[in-house]
């Protein structure tokens, strides 16, 4: 020892670090990834690897050559963006399209705002919506689960939500239900849909793991899923012929993936518990409005992006509970 280190307190630091948190999220996504590979096989493996590699590569290239800053492509956040982007694409999405999505996610969604911590919108959802509006047909042709040696040539069809949306225009819910996989199948993920959104149970396992590791708190997922359940439940009680039951709504589409992974993104979600409730309820309400009264069968991604835009406002006005009320001194 030559010299003493002198710095202000605190002199110790918790184990937490950004890479640790990020890799914790990745670990929590592994069950869902396994289920998706089980149902979509080779297609899932291709789009996931392409998406992750593209996101990391684009982050590196943009930071190195355009922004000219020290690249942070290995901090885990680009990896998560890539993984989540793949999760919300159909498993038969062409490689080039996945790459465009990755470029939109990292380039538009993240780097234009100044990189990690500064983006307003969830990057993976920016990529997803970019592809959705650019290639609407490819983005709504969902491969049938179980064809796991097929990729581009997979047989496709409509998601349960799309069948329901089409159906209720002319028929009652009970007439449509036989065309939709049962609740157990929905829970296990045996349905058409975006590659990573299908398996509710695997996503819930991931959520429990993240809660256990204290990576996220329960407020956002519970407020979103709870709101959707309540809102669709009220509609269902009013008219069960026209509106599907709440269980169907929470088990289908991207709700679980959105509520557990997309909406809980640190950067684009509120900082306080009360803010999280406002945000979660807002996402739930807009999701149901789009699903039931809007033009699209699924609305989670739009709902999250819309509420993302409100987060700075929420953070500005919703404050944590201060310890003691102020007293005036002198």
């Amino acid at each position, binding site marked *: 020892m030559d010299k003493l280190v*002198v710095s202000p307190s605190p002199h110790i630091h918790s184990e937490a*670090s950004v890479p640790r948190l990020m890799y914790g999220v990745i670990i929590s996504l592994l069950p869902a990834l396994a289920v998706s590979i089980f149902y979509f096989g080779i297609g899932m493996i291709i789009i996931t690897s392409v998406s992750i590699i593209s996101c990391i590569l684009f982050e590196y290239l943009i930071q190195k050559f355009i922004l000219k800053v020290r690249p942070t492509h290995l901090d885990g956040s680009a990896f998560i963006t890539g993984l989540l982007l793949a999760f919300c694409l159909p498993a038969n999405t062409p490689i080039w399209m996945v790459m465009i999505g990755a470029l939109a996610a990292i380039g538009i969604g993240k780097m234009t705002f100044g990189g990690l911590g500064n983006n307003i919108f969830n990057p993976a959802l920016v990529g997803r919506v970019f592809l959705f509006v650019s290639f609407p047909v490819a983005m709504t042709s969902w491969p049938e689960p179980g064809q796991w040696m097929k990729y581009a040539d997979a047989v496709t069809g409509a998601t349960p939500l799309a069948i329901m949306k089409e159906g209720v225009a002319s028929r009652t819910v009970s007439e449509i239900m036989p065309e939709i996989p049962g609740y157990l199948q929905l829970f296990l993920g045996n349905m058409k849909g975006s590659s990573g959104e299908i398996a509710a149970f695997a996503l819930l396992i991931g959520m429990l793991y993240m809660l256990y590791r204290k990576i996220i708190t329960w407020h956002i997922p519970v407020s979103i899923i709870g709101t959707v359940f309540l809102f669709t439940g009220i509609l269902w009680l009013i008219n069960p012929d026209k509106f599907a039951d709440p269980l169907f709504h929470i088990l289908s589409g991207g709700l679980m993936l959105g509520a557990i992974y997309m909406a809980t993104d640190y*950067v684009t979600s509120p900082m306080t518990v009360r803010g999280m409730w406002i945000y979660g309820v807002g996402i739930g309400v807009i999701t149901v409005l789009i699903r039931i009264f809007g033009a699209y069968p699924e609305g989670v991604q739009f709902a999250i992006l819309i509420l993302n835009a409100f987060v700075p406002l929420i953070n500005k006005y919703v404050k944590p509970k201060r310890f003691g009320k102020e007293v005036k001194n002198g």
Partner: protein
Amino acid sequence: MRLKTFSQGGVHPRELKLSAGKKIEILPPPETVIIPVSQHLGAPSKVLVEKMADVKTGQLIAKSDGFISTNIHASVSGKVLKIDDFTDTSGYRRKGIQIKVSGDEWEEGIDRSDDLVKEFSFTSEEIRNKILEAGIVGLGGATFPSHVKLMVPKGKSAEYMIINGVECEPYLTADHALMMERGEQLVVGIKIMMKGLGVEKAILGIEANKPDAIQKMKSLTEQEKNIHVRGLKVRYPQGGEKQLIQALLNRRVPGGGLPIDVGVVVFNVGTVYAAYEAVQKNKPLIERVVTVTGKSLREPSNFLVRIGTPVSYLIEKCGGLPADTGKVISGGPMMGKALTSLEVPIVKGSSGILLMQESESHRKEILPCIRCSKCISACPMGLEPYLLMALGKNALFERMEEEKVLDCIECGSCSYVCPSARPLLDYIRFGKAEVNKLIRSRKAI
């Protein structure tokens, strides 16, 4: 029964109480001591002795100089070598009295025996005077003169006295050792302080990681109807007085207010013990229990140390300075101060000396804020550290004031939990200083 704790924020760092269970070892005086005249909050004391004067242990050498100030006594006997500026725990050079030790001759009238003196018949005023005379200040680290706390301002009333035996900082065990070995004296001290304050009820709060101390203090107070001992769930910063009051009584001290605003006065166990010695033994505050600890230290210990003893002397007594030492802290790892020199003296507020290994002495690389909100969840005062740091970086001090930066108790929980290792508390301290300047300039107009 579920253990109580404070209801908002907080963290739980590894406790690492390496010196727990070690008996308090009485250290002989070193060769020279340096006794700073500013060891407490408030005005520095006025020096009463001159260079080359002979002093006795316990002799008054610097006098209280103002309402918020206190007395300082020689902790050893010998000759005054110098009255000069010396580096102290703050890192600044400030006035102190250097004494060359010879023998250990005590001032008359001080009872040095270990005999327990239970009975006392002093009035509140006599107790307050004795505490001022003895130079007692808050020994938990804040070093606020204790006699001032005993004077309840007009219009306020004290209902409870809370004794802080929480010791929530990792590593530190001085209060724990004191409760285990001087429990009987503490009970008498509590009664003295209750009398001095004029309260009927006292609660001693101890964290659950010291079950032996809880047990011991409970059995010692079994016969005392008005003194309650409460175990508390381990959670930092429970030793903060606002947190402790809320944990024990569920009363919230208002922002900008004092515990007396909710009818409470808080004393550390060390302070109460010092009060016992002052009142019952006529002994001024010239020594205190100090934990000397660290992962690489051969013998982490609890010492009874004369005020003014150099830190290097304590480290020698623990087996010498480990080769891998990177940082030496006065106090605990969460709120302690890093020392600039090992020759600084132990002062009234020194609860521990902590030696950090070189590998744990440096801060981590600062990464961008990812808005994980862990700093908000950790803040026991309900502040938004991420926001305060951003405001501080942009010199928006008025906004910092609106965001209640002055409520910050500087516990460090925010910086501790930040996954991006951002120096949140550094910017908050900076902001507090600037906001205080703003407020002063407003008053000046």
